[in-house]
């Protein structure tokens, strides 16, 4: 582990990257089990499941940033809203 000491790992960040990896793995398995079909939802372009995940995660990041920048409330509320938004994009986007 000495080799990675300079990366200054912390538990939350490790959890974050592990969940990203799990998410990618899960999406791959899902794709093999039942391939996605590009469709048009409320987003202004045709998207596949992977596209919606990317857009959902990207906008979730922006929501979190806006929360940090504009309010002094706990970050957890922002994260909660972002998660809800992600689910909405995945389902109806």
């Amino acid at each position, binding site marked *: 582990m000495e080799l990675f000491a300079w990366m*200054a790992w912390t538990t*939350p960040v490790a959890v974050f990257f592990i969940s990203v990896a799990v998410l990618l793995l899960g999406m791959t398995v899902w794709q093999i089990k039942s391939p996605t079909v590009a469709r048009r939802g409320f987003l202004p*372009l045709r998207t596949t499941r992977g596209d919606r995940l990317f857009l959902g995660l990207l906008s979730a990041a*922006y929501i979190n*940033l806006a929360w940090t920048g504009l309010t002094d409330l706990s970050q957890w509320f922002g994260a909660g809203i972002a998660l809800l938004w992600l689910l909405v994009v995945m389902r109806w986007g």
Partner: protein
Amino acid sequence: MKTYNNKAWLLVLPVVLCVAFSAIVPLMTVVNYSVQDILGPDQKVFVGTEWFKLVMRDPELHEALGRQILFSAAVLAIEIPLGILLALALPAQGWRSSLALVLLAMPLLIPQNVVGTIWQIYGRGDIGLAGAALNGLGLDYNYTGDSMDAWLTVLVMDIWHWTPLIALLAFAGLRAIPEAYYQAARIDGASRLAVFRFIQLPKLRGVLLIGLLLRFMDSFMIYTEPFVLTGGGPGNATTFLSQYLTQKAVGQFDLGPAAAFSLIYFLIILLACFVFYSLLQNAGPTEKAEH
């Protein structure tokens, strides 16, 4: 139709490994830095989203971002039309064409800091041609003292440096238009403007989007040229995002805020990248259908 075959992954694997090595490991490190206060090699304190809060509310950052957007917008608004005009004016073939292409492409292959050096010399009032000429005309030009002059010098330098890229791309795009299109236009008695509007411009859409993408990204990341030319000054007049970031990370050694800033920067780029890429994808099929 393309065939579906997952063995293609074997062909892309080398690229994925090469790029992942240089992209993912540093990215993970930056994320780690962004949530900690790093006081020394063995002294780190977890601070959560503190740095993000700090950076999002940093007025200097807002100013740098504003300058950056203004700069990128000016670069695109001038370089793209100018590049198209140059491509239209270039002779189609022969030695004149080769000569003009070679001269035109020269600035592209000059190292970034040398570009800065060239303009640093060129713009000086005492030893530079442009600076001396402008002062000779009675203008009070001094890029090291006056913010407006410095800003304009950086802009002109970027136009000088990168317009040739747009011109080359557009020139290549123009060459790809079959002669038959022009003949048809002549028979219809189309004006020069109509030929441009209805034949040349639609055909150039693909290459111009690539040019737009490359120019937007590179101008958004500009660092070396203004650093050499003005060092970000006078004051903060030419401190763009990269410069501000590097000042923080290297100059003041504020690793945490610099990392948080890096991630925000990355998110902005990612969003812009997605928008341009979607446009590019939509431009692609129509263009292919016409061939």
